[in-house]
């Protein structure tokens, strides 16, 4: 199986879907002639031209709304935001238009649109360019929210997103674009609402999604030295959420840590922790722990920046708590 980078997996997904369906188009800042700010759309403009790969001015509210109108009328746009940080300017379009149009029209419209781009902390960027905002989108009914962490998942999930008749928020981690992994050459899809057990274990469950899954896996590996066998669940799709896989795993291990790189208050992580507390109460041997970013805007300096996010040490200390090691 060929090993390709995360960004290449995304590119392949868009390329294959554009080839399959002439209604699929890509629009956003620098997606065409510049080949994408993060080079995810490299070569697509050469192949499909101005009609289907459209450079926009820097006007997130405007071009996001144009994408939504095009979807209402029957096209299947992929709207790329250079980063999710800028999507906040388009929040009104996403929440008030994309998410609600079907509902408030009594089911008259489908909104087959994908909003994608890099989300989450990067490095040395301070607070406006470095934040994880999945919780904001996951809060809104009418949106599906997806966040892959491997090239394999990225390709399979993005193809599913493009074929979905609903608005899908597709969150890629900026620091994962170069990550390589095996991706089959034959076509495959990954359904939404299917969490993936990235590592199976018996002693505790670590639930995560997106980039920090890799940190959870690394921590699980390190815990082997102390004979602690952690199961790592990658949610992959946040909405719909695969509650069954979560409940099954925690029922088996009796202990649970949730790792989410967004802020802790009213977040995906805090919701999942509540869910586990609610549905697995009788099976739990310890309170559920949440490892998240600190409740502060992101500081600039790198040491502070790293310390503001989930770290392996924070995961270890959560492990000590759920296993009563101290």
């Amino acid at each position, binding site marked *: 199986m060929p090993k390709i980078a995360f960004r290449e997996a995304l590119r392949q997904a868009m390329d294959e879907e554009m080839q399959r369906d002439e209604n699929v188009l890509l629009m956003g800042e620098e997606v065409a002639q510049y080949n994408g700010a993060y080079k995810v759309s490299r070569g697509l403009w050469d192949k499909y031209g101005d009609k289907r790969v459209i450079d926009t001015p820097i*006007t997130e*509210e405007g071009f996001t*709304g144009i994408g*939504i109108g095009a979807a209402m*009328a029957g096209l299947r746009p992929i709207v790329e935001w250079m980063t999710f940080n800028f999507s906040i300017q388009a929040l009104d379009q996403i929440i008030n238009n994309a998410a609600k149009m079907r*509902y408030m*029209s*009594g*089911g008259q419209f489908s909104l087959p649109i994908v909003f994608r781009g890099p989300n989450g902390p990067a490095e040395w960027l301070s607070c406006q360019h470095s934040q994880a905002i999945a919780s904001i989108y996951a809060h809104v009914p*009418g949106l599906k929210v997806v966040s892959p962490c491997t090239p394999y998942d990225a390709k399979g999930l993005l193809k599913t997103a493009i074929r979905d008749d609903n608005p899908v928020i597709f969150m890629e981690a900026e620091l994962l674009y170069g990550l390589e992994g095996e991706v089959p050459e034959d076509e495959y899809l990954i359904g939404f609402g299917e969490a993936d057990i990235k590592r199976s274990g018996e002693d505790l469950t670590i639930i995560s999604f997106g980039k920090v899954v890799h940190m959870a896996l690394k921590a699980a590996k390190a815990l082997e030295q102390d004979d602690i066998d952690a199961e790592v669940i990658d949610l992959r799709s946040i909405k719909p959420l695969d509650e069954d896989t979560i409940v099954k795993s925690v029922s088996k291990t009796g202990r649970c840590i949730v790792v989410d790189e967004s802020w802790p208050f009213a977040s995906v992580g805090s919701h999942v922790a509540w869910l586990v507390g609610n549905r697995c109460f009788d099976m739990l041997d310890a309170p559920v722990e949440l490892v998240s970013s600190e409740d502060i805007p992101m500081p600039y300096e790198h040491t502070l920046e790293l310390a503001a996010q989930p770290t392996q040490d924070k995961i270890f200390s959560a492990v000590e708590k759920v296993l009563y090691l101290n």
Partner: protein
Amino acid sequence: MSEDLKKYDKSLLQDLLKTMMRIRRFEEKAAQAYGLRKFGGFCHLYIGQEAVAAGSVAAVNLENDYIITAYRDHGHALAVGMSPDTVMAELFGRIDGCSRGKGGSMHLFDADKHFYGGHGIVGAHIPLAAGMALKIKYHEEPGVVLCFFGDGAIHQGSFHETLNMASVWKLPVVYICENNHYGMGTDFRRVSSQPQLYKMADSYRMAGREVNGMDALEVYDNVVEAASQVRQDNVPALIEMKTYRYQGHSMSDPAKYRTKDEVAEYKNQDPIVILKDRMTEAGLLDEQEYKKLDNEMKNAAKDSVEFAEKSKRPELKTMFEDVFA
């Protein structure tokens, strides 16, 4: 005056008059039902502005063309041919309403009639119109989009962002600003750096024109012209319709920010009376025919209230329907 009516089909004139009267009588009934607390929420009446919706919609062909508007949408919904019954039922929040009771007064839709709503966030539907136009261009269809919004929306960033892109990408949209002089309670002259709103078109290298929005035929002629220019030259256009609402912004607004004289002045240019008088002068309408038509429209409005009252409230389980496709 009557001479210039000769260039129009009699049926067009009758349709324009009928549409405006249908809207007027419907709105009066809606106001009455609201007053009787048959339904609640916001209710933005269109009385006074009928010529804009009637004249504009008559100027396009909804087989290929599309309509989208803001929250003062009852008039446009009726002008595209939606039945007063389904519109009134929606105001009442009933299951036979066009949006199955999920949208209400501000969110009327009819996808089959290419009526794409009914939008409640000021200016937020302006980019949607460009998106619909992008689809028309993408599939090389002959259509144009008419996008209606008020003078309040013209200052939103969404307007400026979108007109820029619509011009660069040559999208077939006619943007129609219904300047009824007040964004809620704020006189547009207090908040518009360019009080001749149509001139904003210059900034985006598109044609802008000012139209008397109280005259259905002037509206009709200008939209026909603008739409044909848009189709021919592949550039969007902006029309400022000077119009006036007789009522407050919504049912809860007593409209004390306007003088009685000002309201009276506009009521003297009533769009229905203007067309009626011209048709009468030209011998195309007599008082008896007018009365008959008016009774027809009054009855339709009355029937729509009865229909709405008889329609069931949506079952509770429907609240979970239509979140996703």
